[in-house]
């Protein structure tokens, strides 16, 4: 073959689509503002600092669960076990409150979560089970074990510990939710971790091209096991906040959040195929979903409308991302 071959790089569009591709946080934030403005127009006088505090408080557990999806999706995976793990953690702490106590409860809950994550990680990283299947399987196992635990410990009340109620639902000066005390450091850790640590780089690398990562000396099982353990620990944290927020400790508490958590990550610009995305967009995605939910509730729309709207948003946003990120 002659040498006159010039392989041109991929054509990359400019303008808005370039922005959506390279800095999805900006257009997504614009979308959030538009939705908030609509809210303000439809329900005049409601949108104020107090309202913002309530929205924020409601969005925190969802944002953390969506963070689990973001990290796993960066490697081309997904973690459907997060909600079972979150519910299990909340329930465990509540059930251990009378007796062993709060601290022991937290330790047991986090250990159980880490074990669940380890199981998922081993399945995905070593036995090469697809993350979707593996995490779905683990979520059933976790739910089953939580149910068994519930039957074994048929004890009195499963009250949510006061500390969790304070952190999960109360607000500083009736404004800033205390859950931010947990959420802000966690966010900083994830954002910086993705950008400035070797582990963060490996998540992107494995998601972008597992062969290249392998040829460069990465052992993906190490990355994946660590990742799924971290994801389960974050899920447990979200579960604790959620039980504090709702003042409920049940083994199915977070079940309804599994699909919204994926949706928030997708809306935030994280590719389900891996290698592209970040936590910043995911937070905005979680806020968008929370505000829309609140709006529909305020307008008295039935649950079905919310589901249809969520579904439509995911499809439209995913199509838009695919359009701007695919190589022409």
């Amino acid at each position, binding site marked *: 073959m002659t040498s006159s*071959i010039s392989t041109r790089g991929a054509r990359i569009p400019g303008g808005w689509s370039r922005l959506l591709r390279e800095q999805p946080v900006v257009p997504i934030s614009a979308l959030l503002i538009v939705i908030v403005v609509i809210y303000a127009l439809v329900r005049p006088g409601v949108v104020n600092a107090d309202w913002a505090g309530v929205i924020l408080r409601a969005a925190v557990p969802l944002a953390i669960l969506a963070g689990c999806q973001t990290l796993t999706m960066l490697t081309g995976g997904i973690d459907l076990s997060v909600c079972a793990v979150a519910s299990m953690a909340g329930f465990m702490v509540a059930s251990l409150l009378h007796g062993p106590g709060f601290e022991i409860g937290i330790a047991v809950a986090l250990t159980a979560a880490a074990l669940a994550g380890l199981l998922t990680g081993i399945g995905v990283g070593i036995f090469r089970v697809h993350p979707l299947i593996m995490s779905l399987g683990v979520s059933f196992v976790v739910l089953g074990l939580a149910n068994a635990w519930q039957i074994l410990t048929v004890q009195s009340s499963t009250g949510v510990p006061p500390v969790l109620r304070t952190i999960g639902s109360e607000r500083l000066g009736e404004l800033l939710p205390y859950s931010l005390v947990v959420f802000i450091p966690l966010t900083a850790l994830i954002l910086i971790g993705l950008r*400035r640590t070797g582990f963060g780089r490996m998540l992107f690398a494995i998601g*972008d091209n597992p062969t290249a990562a392998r040829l460069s*000396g990465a052992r993906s099982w190490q990355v994946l096991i660590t990742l799924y353990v971290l994801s389960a620990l974050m899920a447990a944290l979200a579960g604790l906040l959620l039980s504090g927020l709702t003042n409920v400790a049940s083994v199915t508490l977070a079940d309804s959040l599994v699909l919204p958590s994926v949706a928030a990550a997708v809306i935030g610009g994280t590719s389900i195929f891996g290698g592209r995305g970040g936590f910043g967009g995911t937070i905005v995605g979680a806020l968008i979903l929370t505000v829309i939910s609140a709006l529909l509730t305020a307008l008295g729309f039935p649950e079905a409308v919310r589901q249809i709207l969520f579904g439509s948003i995911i499809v439209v946003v995913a199509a838009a991302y695919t359009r701007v990120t695919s190589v022409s």
Partner: protein
Amino acid sequence: MTLRTQLLLEATDVAKTYGAVVALRSASLAVRPGEVHALMGANGAGKSTLVKILTGAVRPDSGRIVVGGRERMAHSPAEARRGGVVSVYQEPALIPDLDVRSNLRLTKTPEESFRHWLAELGIENLDFSELARVLPLATLRIIDLARALAIEPDVLMLDEMTAALPANLTERVLAVVDGHRGADRSVIFISHRMIEIAAVCDRATVLREGTTVGVVDMTDGAEERIVELMIGDVAEAVPPRTARRDAGAARPPEATPRLTARSLSAKHKLRDVSFELHRGEVLGVVALEGQGQDELFEILSGSERPDGGEMLLDGAPVTFHHPADAIRAGVVYVAADRADALLMQRSITENIALPLTSRIRQWGWINLVAERTRVDAAVEALQIDARAGGEVRQLSGGNQQKVTIARWVAGGVQTMLCFDPTRGIDIRTKSQIYLLLRDLADAGAAVLFYTSELKEIQLVCDRTIVIFGGRVVAEIDAADSDEPTLLRAAYDLPSDAPADTVTDVAVAGPTTRERST
């Protein structure tokens, strides 16, 4: 007599481009009824593309194809098949999860006739209820061939049919091919084994750079003529000799080689490869497609483990279980396919710095300043043009290839394995890569360099080993590594032998060497 003059298959001025890459410029092929016709050409000459066009798998941009006197353009392999053109490809075409009988039914193969050809090809007692996936490769190839023969095609195309076969089966296949000719049936035969070509073919069409450059009658001395045609005008390809050759020659002889391969073997492809790679030299590897070079590089880079033989690093035996082991030992690998090596959606920096964070102990905080310095130095050394944008996929092919090399240069190279690093990139980048490889060697690195472009050997290498059929068949010094010598060696023809000696060996059919494999 009219049948004799009419061609069975005629392709005229067939052209095909893939994007900017010209696969076929102007290929022509005329197959007479009753002949076995060889299709020859060096790597990348366009053989495969022409075969795909003839069998309807690929549509040509222009050109005329006439089969049995009627112009015809097949749109699918099934259509070509109905038109009497059947091909047996290099890879087995059976569905692994179906048994043999179901596979036959899929292609509506007459079982009676299939059994006949199977016996003819030397396979007895084949259990038709066996799943295709459990059968050995050689048997699958024979089934493919018998299946093609059973439907009695006018033109049978065999693409590297004998590559995966043991010697006894090869003989049976050649005998069947030999007997299949005659009447108005023809065979188009593609093989890297010149001896087989000489033994069964009547004529050969030679392709070079997408163009038919000649048709040779397979008489005495035809092999030499074919090699000449494949190489083309040798005078234009004389490389500029520079002073660096002297520098290479002045290298003091070293007691312990950096890398030693002893009788490496793997699967059926790699049979027995031994060589020594010293510090300060670029050792070339030349091989026709599929002679085991892919497997060799996979083993050396830690991606696969050998079935036999051993590797020594600085005289001590090593076993690589993972590319990470090789990298830690200072053996780095530049893959042929950039899609295997790059994070296309990530930045140049992340791509170059990738090996720096791959081990668990490197998962912590990244020192961005140190990383920047290192990446900048590598970008500088390779003159990577980073203006195109943030993501590596936006770079040109040449710059992408530089990034894959820069990744390792950034860390200081001890041993570099390069598998066809200049494939599909522009001439300027190519010469930069030649210089870089020389510089690395001069700085004391050991470089193993496989290339599909023979011209490059003389520009870059100090020595060259030639692999054929999974074995090292020749070692050629820099001074003698001109293209004709290399190509002759790649086809396992005796080098610099008088033409009549060559023919003696060739017409003898499968020689003792072939039999002993």
